């Protein structure tokens, strides 16, 4: 569109050099009778000339209020524009009598109670920042913090609040405590901020890393801050200035601060450490702080919105973010708990268990805080070394072996050493490397995507799904080429097809993950309350369709694994570890088949239930003046519209499949009843699987809980179905059913992915 023109202009502008030697830039030059001299522009081919007269003439042609807008003035620029002297836009605007900055006496001693009050308020601000609010409206509103950061200190000696001559020798203990605490706090924030910035996150949406041109004490040695915290603690213990209650309260706060600082420094390590115990210990230190919070005395005058005027920001001061103490502690406790769990990801069992871990960790409610999610990404991906120990190839090959290619020669590392160009092994190695370089990024992106916030997971999957469709096609080509080198014998089965049937292992693998992601897109749609009630029959129909497609696909994979396994067993020379690899892949295929059966059974049941509720007019779909069902279907299915396989069901066909015009209502509800019973049995079996068989090693408890929630939803659905069945049986063909349906909103049901309607009898039935 306008892109080219715009870049041309900015290029022109960049080519100009302004002569900016010191000049007497009279303010309000416009008011002088003498016009200012034209700026001296130096650029080859550009001749500067004075156009003041032409401009004035042109301006006089305009009527008052008439607008001139060039085509490059964008919405973004208009939103960024400011109006001077508007109190909500002009950062320099002052109310009558208002001062620009605060006048605060930093030399004044504070009561120990006041120190507790300030410290606890700072903790609330710290958590508000972790929750996604900017530093400018949280921690940076503290005048003490501002004092520490501006001007930027280079040594601890430059951090005294009181800047008078004698300050260092006679700093009161209370102020030293506050100073040590603030230094520890800022340094902790610095670690957190740098960690977040190093991974994938969405600025402002998830977290605000902006420090408004302030340095978070990166010049000051970490150890010296820890030492000051320790020394201050000792000084406090030996002090006789205050009551033991206050001493204990201040002491536990200093210890907490030192501990937190140590942990965020160590949390980055991916080698075995005692970090889990440290997070647990930090969590255990919180009750003492909480219980002594009542001793604190707030010092509201030590926090101010005006500090924002000193920060690198164009907007006027915004209000201080208020996060209460209870909410702050809750957030911190959860952060400690989640962080102590997330380190468990470092223990690798198998690629499927790893993915299960990441999925289940991200479904913890509420979703783990950004810093913890960032730690997860860091543990997974830092330096392209997976979990700090494995190459990407290792994980990818593991996954291929455990899904489609157990003990297969394509994954034989020995192939890499063959240099004879005609040797099939050399060619296999080459083709597999092509595949890996094509697939590795997409595969790891699944994990990276799942680490994002819930809305982003769905949005990102909706975009990347097309990439998986292409990946499958590319893999199909490689599969065909590889046959020449693997010498694969096709299956000949005239009952299925007249053509020979090949295994297509790489594209099978890609198809499996594509289907998984398509299922997640639909399921996240339920979780995020994206669908309207009358869409539910169709969306559950689609879910069962995708799940059933996965199940059939797994059957195909199983068939080929069994075939190679049979061949392998006939050869007595190969045995041992290879046997285990076959068993593992078959076990995974069986597990995923079971899981898909429970999913499509339940989805089918709900789809039928909603269809019946439509027939009974308990779920209405009103006519819409600007749209019809097929057009809304296009909007809904847009992410899938470009997918080649499975092909998008055409609206008219889908409509038939959902409304089932040839089946009686009683038949449909009976089918729903059978289907939900089947799903229930499926979830029951799943819930009893071992961690190894359910591919959830490292997260078995969360996995069982998740399955049990599905089971509860399933039981609840079977009750709803039998209630509706009774209506249908009791009611004559034309009579209206006297009942009401309530559809729970997101988070209100037993499981976010299963929206089970509640059937409420009307009183007069």
């Amino acid at each position, binding site marked *: 569109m306008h892109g080219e023109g715009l870049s041309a202009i900015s290029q022109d502008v960049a080519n100009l050099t302004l002569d900016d030697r010191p000049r007497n830039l009279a303010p309000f030059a416009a008011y002088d009778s003498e016009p200012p001299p034209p700026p001296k522009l130096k650029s080859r081919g550009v001749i500067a000339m004075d156009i003041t007269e032409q401009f004035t003439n042109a301006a006089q042609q305009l009527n008052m209020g008439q607008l001139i807008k060039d085509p490059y003035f964008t919405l973004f620029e208009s939103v960024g524009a400011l109006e001077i002297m508007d109190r909500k836009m002009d950062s320099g605007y002052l109310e009558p009598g208002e001062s620009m900055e605060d006048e605060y006496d930093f030399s004044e001693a504070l009561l120990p109670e006041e120190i507790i009050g300030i410290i606890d308020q700072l903790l609330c601000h710290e958590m508000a920042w972790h929750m996604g609010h900017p530093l400018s409206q949280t921690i940076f509103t503290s005048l003490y913090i501002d004092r520490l950061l501006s001007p930027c200190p280079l040594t601890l000696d430059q951090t005294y609040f009181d800047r008078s001559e004698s300050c260092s020798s006679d700093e009161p203990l209370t102020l030293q405590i506050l100073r040590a605490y603030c230094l520890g706090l800022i340094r902790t924030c610095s670690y957190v901020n740098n960690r977040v910035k190093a991974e994938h996150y969405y600025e402002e*949406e998830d977290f605000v890393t902006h420090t408004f041109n302030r340095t978070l004490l990166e010049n000051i040695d970490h150890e010296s801050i820890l030492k000051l915290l320790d020394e201050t603690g000792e000084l406090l213990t030996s002090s006789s200035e205050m009551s033991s209650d206050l001493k204990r309260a201040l002491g536990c706060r200093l210890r907490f601060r030192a501990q937190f600082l140590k942990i965020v420094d160590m949390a980055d390590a991916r080698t075995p450490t005692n970090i889990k115990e440290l997070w647990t210990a930090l969590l255990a230190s919180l009750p003492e702080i909480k219980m002594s919070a009542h001793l604190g005395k707030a010092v509201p005058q030590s926090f101010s919105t005006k500090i924002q005027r000193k920060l690198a920001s164009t907007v006027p001061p915004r209000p201080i973010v208020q996060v209460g103490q209870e909410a702050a502690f809750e957030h911190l406790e959860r952060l400690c708990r989640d962080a102590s769990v997330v380190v468990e990801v470092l223990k690798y069992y198998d690629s499927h268990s790893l993915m299960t871990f990441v999925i289940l960790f991200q479904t913890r409610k509420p979703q783990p805080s950004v810093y913890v999610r960032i730690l997860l990404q860091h543990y997974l991906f830092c330096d392209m070394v997976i979990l700090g120990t494995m190459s990407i190839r290792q994980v990818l090959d593991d996954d291929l072996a455990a899904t489609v290619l157990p003990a297969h020669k394509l994954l034989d590392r020995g192939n890499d050493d063959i240099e004879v160009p005609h040797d099939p092994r050399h060619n296999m190695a080459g083709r597999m490397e092509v595949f890996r370089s094509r697939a590795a990024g997409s595969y790891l992106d699944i994990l990276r995507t799942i680490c994002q916030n819930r*809305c982003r997971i*769905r949005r990102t999957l909706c975009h990347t799904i097309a990439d998986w469709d292409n990946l499958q096609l590319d893999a199909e080509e490689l599969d065909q080429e590889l046959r020449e080198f693997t010498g694969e014998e096709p299956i000949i089965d005239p009952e299925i097809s007249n053509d020979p049937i090949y295994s297509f292992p790489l594209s099978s693998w890609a198809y499996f993950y594509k289907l998984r992601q398509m299922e997640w897109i639909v399921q996240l749609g339920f979780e995020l309350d994206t669908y309207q009630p009358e869409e539910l029959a169709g969306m559950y129909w689609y879910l069962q369709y995708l799940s059933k497609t996965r199940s059939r696909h797994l059957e195909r994979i199983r068939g080929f694994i069994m075939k190679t396994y049979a061949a392998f067993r006939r050869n007595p020379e190969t045995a041992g570890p290879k046997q285990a690899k076959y068993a593992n892949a078959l076990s995974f295929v069986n597990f995923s088949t079971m899981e898909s059966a429970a999913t499509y059974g339940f989805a089918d049941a709900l789809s039928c239930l909603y269809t019946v509720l439509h027939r009974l007019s308990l779920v209405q779909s009103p006519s819409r003046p600007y749209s019809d069902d097929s057009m809304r279907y296009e909007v809904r299915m847009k992410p899938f519209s470009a997918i080649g396989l499975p092909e998008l069901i055409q609206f008219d066909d889908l409509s038939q499949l959902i409304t089932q015009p040839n089946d009686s209502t009683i038949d449909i509800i009976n089918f729903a009843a059978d289907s939900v019973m089947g799903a229930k049995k499926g979830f029951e079996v799943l819930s009893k699987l071992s961690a190894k068989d359910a591919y959830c090693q490292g997260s078995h408890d969360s996995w069982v809980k998740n399955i049990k929630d599905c089971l509860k939803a399933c039981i609840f659905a079977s009750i709803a179905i039998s209630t509706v069945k009774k209506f249908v049986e009791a009611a004559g063909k034309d009579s209206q059913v006297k009942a009401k349906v309530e559809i729970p909103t997101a988070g209100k049901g037993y499981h976010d992915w299963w929206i089970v309607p509640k059937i409420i009898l009307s009183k007069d039935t």
Partner: protein
Amino acid sequence: MSDQQSRDKGKAAELPAELRYIQYEHALEKQYLPSIRALISKDLSEPYSIYVYRYFLYQWGDLCFMALGPNSSLLGVIICKLEPHQSHSPPTLRGYIAMLAVSEGWRNHGIATTLVRKAIDVMVERDADEVVLETEETNVPAMKLYERLGFIRSKKLHRYYLNGNSAYRLVLHLKKMVEMSGQDLV
């Protein structure tokens, strides 16, 4: 952008007999822009600068409608734009409802619905392919209004607003996808 629909189901005054809807034009700026700004920024923590209003009104004045009451007082307003859009998918001529507000005492009378319909009607006349907007997840009345007209929620946007609330993107296709402008717009 902003979207203030009635959140209160309380009783409102009777509709004035002289309620009328007029299409905006530049000559009306002096008379109505101050009250448009006042009405829209009432519930906003960060107001839009004058340039934001002019950005829309100067280019798409015909997509702005006002509901006027007694003495030509402003009761409601809708501000939109319409231009080619392309991101991940084929280009479309996309209408965007940027702002919609109805004065508190006059809500629940269908004024907002009428304003939206008038704007969409002009977009249809101008051959728009689709209409989109964002609305706060907590603003149930607004979502109901749009959904009754045919919009659906295409995605949820995490912490989209300054207050930390999430939003839904609502989308209405005015044509079948095969009939959309597609490459003509590039």
